[in-house]
């Protein structure tokens, strides 16, 4: 495209301790364009945008605004340069009115703010872009869609030229999504540069002029809308060099059906259907891999199995017993183990030490307690055993676990769950954020558990991982399994398109 880019990011590198979140990223944003940033979770989209909005400082690299090099030391600098962002979690003050929230962002106005002027301006902007919100209503009274409109209006009110939206459609109904797209197009036509972060292919293809795909913190490709197609993008998102190594899995007899999920639905955190009509079966000694772009119901599935999320319909059977909507304790007692993706947020208690974390789910079993009393020594012994068996490296078992590295946390967590001898284990993204050595040992642990005849559901976004470990693969999309494959017939192309929600030959899917 001709002309100077409005924003130009050159060779952006961002390193966090142990991880390179962004690696030599180049990105040009032009006014009048809608630019989609596509990539899976953890591919570095949000980090890149946090750099552009001044939340992070890049380790290396240069940002120029209209050709002039800028150094953002705070979000205020980015705002002053006309860059605005709507975060996935809205940053509004619930007990303020819409007008107050919008006026608040205008730190440079004079000491006194005229409510009436602000309200008038908001109404004008709202009319112009077809985004009417009553400026006098309180934010807590608004629907999610309306809150998003307030966020967008706030950016426009600040005269932002670059509008960044992080997964804006995640919380919207299809109709609201269409409206949003129309409005975004209008804003682009008025000279704004719009950045649209998403992992939903359909939306990106519908809306964007230009598409940049990120994978593993690097730019995997950058195209014009017209030069690309769905399949090219899928390949790029999930990585083209999928080596399906049918590895040295031991032949093993698969046992009886352990878990049977029949047509369950459940709400997600924002109150829409996270699971809708999900069904699957897992047998003893089998690893059932769930492939899919994250955010399609994986966490909701795991949480219903852990008793943490109520279902709205359907039933779950465990060894023939109906366990639908039982309490977390009941699920644990039946031998259902859930290894959550958020290790420190859910699986472990950061401020407690390793021993206290090891007994977390069994503290009231005779193993660790006696009457009212905790058997401290038993916990210490069990912890030492786990540390040794699973090669967990830590300073001391009496230090808070928040001091441990990600890989060791995962080993401790998995070690605890494996030591509880589960009959069914559901593991979410077990190797996310781990280095190669740790990945290998985590995989070994999962395979050992399979040999112990445990039924395992492995949720992953890495197809390679699933191909290597699983016996059967189900592709999850929009809260249900769209297709299932025995590992021998794994067709990467088909899996890829199912992950994007495309069921091409309608009769076929299992």
């Amino acid at each position: 495209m001709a002309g100077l880019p409005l924003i130009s990011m050159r060779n952006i590198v961002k390193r966090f301790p142990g991880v390179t979140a962004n690696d030599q990223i180049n990105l040009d944003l032009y006014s009048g364009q809608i630019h989609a940033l596509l990539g899976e979770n953890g591919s570095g989209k949000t980090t890149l945008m946090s750099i552009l909005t001044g939340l992070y400082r890049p380790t290396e690299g240069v940002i120029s605004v209209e050709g002039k090099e800028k150094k953002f030391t705070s979000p205020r600098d980015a705002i002053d340069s006309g860059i605005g962002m709507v975060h996935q979690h809205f940053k509004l003050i619930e007990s303020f009115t819409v007008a107050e929230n919008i006026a608040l962002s205008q730190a440079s106005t004079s000491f006194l703010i005229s409510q009436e002027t602000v309200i008038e301006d908001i109404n004008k902007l709202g009319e112009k872009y077809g985004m009417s919100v009553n400026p006098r209503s309180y934010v807590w009274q608004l629907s999610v869609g309306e809150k998003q409109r307030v966020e967008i209006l706030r950016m426009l009110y600040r005269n932002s030229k670059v509008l960044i939206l992080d997964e804006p459609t995640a919380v919207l109904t299809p109709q609201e999504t269409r409206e949003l797209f129309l409005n975004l197009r209008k804003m682009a036509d008025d000279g704004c540069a719009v950045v649209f972060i998403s992992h939903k292919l359909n939306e990106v293809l519908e809306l964007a002029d230009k598409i940049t795909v990120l994978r593993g913190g690097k730019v995997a490709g950058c195209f014009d809308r017209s030069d690309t197609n769905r399949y090219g993008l899928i390949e790029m998102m999930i990585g083209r060099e999928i080596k399906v190594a049918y590895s040295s899995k031991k032949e093993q007899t698969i046992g009886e059906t352990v878990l049977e999920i029949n047509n369950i639905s459940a709400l997600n955190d924002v109150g829409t259907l996270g699971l809708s009509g999900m069904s699957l079966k897992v047998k003893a000694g089998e690893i059932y891999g769930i492939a899919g772009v994250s955010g399609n119901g994986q966490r909701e599935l795991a949480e219903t199995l852990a008793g943490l999320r109520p279902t709205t319909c359907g039933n779950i059977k465990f060894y023939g017993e109906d366990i639908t909507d039982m309490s977390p304790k009941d699920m644990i007692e039946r031998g259902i183990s859930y290894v959550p993706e958020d290790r420190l947020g859910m699986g472990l208690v950061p401020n407690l030490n390793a021993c206290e974390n090891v007994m977390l789910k069994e503290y009231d079993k005779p193993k660790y307690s006696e009457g009212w009393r905790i058997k401290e020594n038993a916990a210490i012994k069990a912890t030492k055993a786990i540390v040794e068996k699973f090669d967990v490296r830590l300073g001391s078992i009496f230090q808070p676990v928040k001091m441990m590295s990600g890989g060791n946390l995962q080993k401790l967590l998995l070690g605890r769950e494996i030591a509880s001898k589960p009959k069914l284990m559901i593991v979410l993204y077990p190797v996310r954020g781990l280095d190669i050595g740790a990945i290998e040992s985590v995989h070994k642990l999962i395979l050992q558990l399979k040999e112990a005849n445990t039924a395992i559901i492995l949720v992953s976004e890495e197809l390679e991982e699933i191909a290597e470990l699983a016996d059967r693969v189900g592709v999850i999309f929009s809260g249900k399994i769209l297709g299932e494959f025995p590992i021998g017939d794994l067709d990467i192309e088909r899996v890829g398109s199912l992950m994007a929600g495309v069921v091409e030959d309608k009769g076929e899917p299992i």
Partner: protein
Amino acid sequence: MRIKIQKSLAPNLVSQILVPIFAVLASLLFCAVFFALTGRDPLEVYYAMFAGALGSEYGISETFVKMIPLALCGLGIAVAFRMHLWNIGAEGQFYMGACAATWVPLSFPDWPFALMIPAMIIMGALAGGLWGLLAGWFKTKWQVDEIISTLMMNYIGILWVDFLVYGAWRDPGGKNFPLTAAFPSAAMLPTFGSLRVHYGIFFVLIFATVFWIIFKKSKWGYETLVIGSNPVAARYAGINIKRNILLTMFISGALCGIAGMVEVSGVVGKLQPGISPGYGYTAIIVAWLARLHPIAIMGVAFLFAIIHVGGFMLQTMGMPSATATMLQGAMLFFVVGADLLTKYEIKFVGRKVGEKND
């Protein structure tokens, strides 16, 4: 070169003990400046204070009298705070406990000591406990913030006592003063000789030890610790959070209720308005400064009792009664501020590019 403050990974035990002690000394130094500015010799002031509180049998006895309710309420508060349940209703629970305990001797003045005292303890614990439980129930039922509900229920508790002593429970032979009849001697906790300090001190010792063991060794102590540190993990581990909120609020309130019972039965000998000069509020500071450790609570309560009693001595020197409050405030300020030193470490580093701006 610049200074960087970063989260210390392993708070070490020495700094955890030394830092608060230095903070207390610093707060004394800080207040000394004010004493000097008002033309007093700070040494003389502190001497008067400590000598007043600790220099005589009478002073020591008075200090213990103040320490007992502070420590009991502090323990009650610590039980709840450990679970991150912000029960600031100790004052109200104290009044309700005192009130229910008073009901026993007023209704059954002829009961013997062996029946009277246990009945008063049970009534005090029940009333304080139920008062706390009510706030816990609001929280589990309608997600009412316990800070608000316990705070507001303080006023109800205090005014309820006023209502009774100005009305139904007023002693007919009391010349119209808002007091209940004096308790029969069977309803009074024994004192040490002729001093005012009473056997309530044993309650403190017993409960502090019991809760120290509960916190360290028991399943329930572990549950509340997990809920307090990470409620999501607690739910994931199958811990019943609602039940624990109710139980914890009850026990927390019960301890404060017992404090109220001990106060009427050990010191006052009747129910009257203003039986607590804000013990329930000061105890929040006590529990917090003691880092919710039951044994440390006894120590901090003793320190605050010294300031309290010493404060009276200062009034006889013509200094305002707010002096003691100022000292307490300064201590809280310095100890909480010094927390930074135990949780964070200060490092001198060379300048690096690309650090996270936070």
